[in-house]
């Protein structure tokens, strides 16, 4: 049995020697501290990055509440440890701990890790090593926790297949409870067939994907020949979980309020899950279909109770495209009315470009400043926007920002990507022209010269389970050359250049993200080599080392007949077996291919919420359905206090 006394007394003197020790102490408002012995199933939930990034994660917050609400389950949290503390912990043999009780992570039944980005993979290895849990799943014993991953990046977990015991696809609420029940029953039955028995029943019930139960074989040309189960009764394809009736799952209801400063400090309500706008580059939209709304009543109750439970003064109405909620107008107006005199600010990540969005933004900023609005045209030219199915015409964009500037807004931020399929230098340079016309129309509409436009642009990374899963990623040199050319063109614009700022990320991290997001099991060796060489915290530019990654890729992949470019810049043929073909996001492979071809032909696809089904495959395949309003109801009346 692993020790289950608090590590805190051994940690305290180490904390006096490190940066921002407050992030490691736990004890925050709404954190749950159950006696370790009181639960039958114990989860250590991890977001594999620093506390300031991981704590605001919505997925983690939801699972934390769902699990801790059951008296037979407990869940504590753990995050990445910064190198200053990790060095001291290794010196003193203090293992990776949980934030609530400062217990060793190895004492828990499950280490559940939520991956929003592939750049967290080295952080998983670092945490396993600090936790004194064997790095490779094959070396773990019955005493070690099950390492289960989820989140968007888990939809292709093949690059980390050696390090994880299982991956869960899709919505985690019901899945985490079902897995907990399975572990409880397995323990109560005397752990039949040990760890293998537990993993086998997880796999057979379709609850999770267990990589060890699938063999991958390779063809002479180094492509994958086949991926097939190696155990009886294990399904050939593993499907994602889809949660229906979000109103029955109003979480997080009382999220933890961090004591340390974090990247987002607001109470966020997910007003709907899923998106069927059909942007072809967008993995989040593709893998989270269909759209399921929370009703206006549930949103109202969650906001009211969430603010009361946290004391926060900022509310975010989250989703992949919040203005698309069927009752967003009423939600915004009624929330703005309710909190008009209470110093609560409301925000909507507004990325759609239409006048309706401006109305919403005006409602939500009634009390506050009208500083900046954000839109995401993603592609610089109209042609390119048809390729990616981002249905925004330049006329719409200019009239929308004109309206915004006319109503007191002074700044717009425009998001773009570089390296989209079929993109040319001219498509990227067109962004500068667009920004100049934005300034022009803003000056005209507002009568003021004080109009600013920020262009934020990064490299496009093709992702699994999207229509662009086959495309060759643009090479680093071309990405960087196009971005520099754009910046140069803006700088040379004598009339408007100094009112436009260009913010861009260089193409290097994107190339590694590309390797990890469309990699197969062979890429695991690269991840391990990078971590062994000291690579961690790849999401932080001061820690990310492109040279370390390319050196590790060269050393580990060349003997296998593949290389970095083979995974990233190579266009994959339709016939090729993709590393994630056996992992079922519900999207029909033929539909994805057809949508890719439609993109190349610059053909647009309407949203299935309004234009009818076009057979992407999700609903019939997964027994799901679109769940949207309008309900015609309103926010609950304010309770008398």
């Amino acid at each position: 049995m692993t020790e289950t006394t608090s590590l805190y007394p051994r940690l305290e003197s180490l904390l006096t020697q490190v940066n921002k020790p407050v992030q490691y102490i736990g004890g925050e408002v709404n954190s749950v501290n159950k006696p370790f012995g009181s639960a039958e199933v114990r989860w250590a939930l991890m977001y594999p990055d620093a506390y300031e990034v991981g704590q605001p994660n919505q997925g983690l917050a939801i699972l934390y509440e769902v699990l801790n609400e059951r008296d037979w389950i407990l869940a504590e949290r753990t995050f990445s440890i910064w190198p200053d503390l990790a060095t001291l912990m290794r010196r003193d043999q203090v293992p990776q701990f949980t934030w609530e009780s400062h217990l060793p992570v190895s004492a828990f039944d499950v280490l559940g890790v939520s991956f929003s980005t592939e750049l967290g993979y080295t952080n998983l290895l670092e945490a396993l090593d600090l936790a004194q849990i064997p790095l490779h799943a094959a070396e773990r014993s019955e005493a070690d926790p099950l390492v289960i991953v989820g989140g968007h990046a888990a939809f292709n977990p093949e690059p980390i297949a050696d390090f994880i015991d299982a991956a869960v696809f899709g919505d985690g609420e019901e899945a985490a409870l079902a897995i907990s029940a399975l572990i409880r029953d397995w323990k109560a039955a005397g752990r039949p067939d040990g760890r293998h028995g537990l993993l086998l029943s997880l796999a057979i019930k379709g609850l999770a994907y267990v990589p060890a139960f699938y063999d991958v074989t390779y063809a002479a040309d180094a492509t994958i020949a086949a991926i097939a189960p190696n155990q009886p009764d294990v399904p050939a394809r593993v499907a994602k979980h889809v949660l229906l009736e979000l109103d029955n799952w109003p979480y997080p209801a009382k999220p933890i309020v961090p004591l340390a400063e974090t990247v987002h400090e607001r109470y966020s309500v997910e007003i709907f899950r899923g998106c069927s706008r059909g942007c072809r580059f967008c993995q989040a939209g593709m893998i989270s279909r269909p759209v399921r709304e929370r009703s206006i009543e549930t949103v109202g109750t969650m906001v009211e109770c969430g603010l009361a439970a946290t004391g926060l003064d900022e509310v975010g109405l989250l989703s992949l495209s919040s203005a698309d909620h069927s009752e967003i107008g009423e939600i915004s107006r009624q929330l703005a009315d309710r909190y008009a005199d209470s110093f609560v600010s409301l925000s909507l990540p507004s990325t759609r470009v239409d006048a309706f969005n401006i109305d919403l933004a005006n409602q939500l900023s009634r009390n506050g400043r009208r500083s900046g609005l954000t839109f995401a045209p993603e592609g610089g030219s109209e042609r390119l926007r048809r390729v990616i199915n981002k249905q925004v015409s330049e006329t719409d964009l200019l009239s929308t920002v004109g309206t915004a500037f006319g109503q007191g807004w002074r700044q717009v931020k425009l998001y773009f990507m570089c390296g989209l399929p079929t993109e040319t230098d001219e498509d990227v340079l067109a962004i500068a022209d667009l920004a100049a016309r934005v300034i022009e129309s803003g000056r005209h509409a507002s009568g003021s010269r004080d109009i600013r436009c920020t262009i934020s642009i990064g490299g496009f990374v093709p992702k699994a389970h999207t229509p662009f899963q086959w495309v060759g990623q643009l090479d680093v040199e071309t990405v960087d050359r196009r971005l520099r050319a754009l910046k140069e063109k803006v700088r040379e614009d004598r009339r408007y250049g100094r009112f436009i700022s260009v913010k861009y990320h260089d193409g290097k991290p994107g190339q590694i993200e590309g390797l990890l997001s469309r990699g197969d099991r062979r890429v695991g060796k690269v991840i391990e080599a990078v971590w062994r060489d000291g690579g961690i915290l790849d999401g932080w530019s001061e820690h990310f080392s492109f040279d370390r990654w390319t050196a590790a890729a060269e050393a580990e992949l060349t003997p296998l007949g593949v290389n970095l470019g083979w995974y990233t810049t190579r266009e994959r043929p339709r016939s090729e077996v993709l590393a994630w073909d056996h992992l079922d996001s519900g999207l029909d492979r033929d539909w994805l291919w057809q949508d890719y071809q439609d993109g190349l032909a610059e053909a647009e696809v309407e949203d299935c919420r309004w234009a009818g089904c076009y057979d992407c495959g999700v609903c019939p395949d997964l027994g799901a359905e679109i769940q949207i309003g309008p309900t015609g109801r309103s926010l609950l009346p304010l309770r008398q206090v």
Partner: protein
Amino acid sequence: MSKRQPPKQQPPPVQRLRVRYAKRGRARFASHRDFGRAFERALRRAGIPMAFSSGFNPHPRISYLNAAPTGAASEAEYVELGLAESREPAQVRDALNAAMPTGLNIVEVVEASGGSLAADLTASRWLIEWPQADAAELAAGVAELLAATSCEVQRQSKSGLRSFDVRPAVLELKVVPAGLNLVGVMGEPLLRPSDVVTALRQLRPQLVDTGTALFSRLEQGRWDGQQVGDPLNQ
């Protein structure tokens, strides 16, 4: 066309409260900014009717005074509040305590008397826990420091290494069973207990490799030559 409204002028506070709070246990690692965010959220959760400043970005009226350094525990931190409606101080204390994170505890709330609270916070009593230091070495170091007329130490500040004389800021320094008990002047530059540890290590090199020292503020107030007064009850 709807232009934005000018910000509403906020009414002045109707009641001023003075709050003494403690930073205990793990919460010693909270910085004054961490405390500030937690405190403002606790005020909202507890439903304390705060007065707000005017402007586009109104802030609740809170004055933070002389926060203990990050990593130091404290039994005597002070904050002053302006309320929009009057409340019973004891009730405010209990409501806030129920809403604060573990280790940040509201010890006392009183109605503000006249005068400035800041002006009353001129000295601090600290406990310096230094378990690995030899008691005889400590006693010798204390005696040498108190006998000296000056003792320059260097400290890392945002603008680089700065040097200042610790000795005039030390009002009282005694060896106690847990380590040291220090009364220091709250002047400019502010004496930190870590400066006294640095001074003692300079005087007694055997104290250099003796692990980390932990600091706790015990009292803050006026020094009358004998004791540190209680700024909320005088």
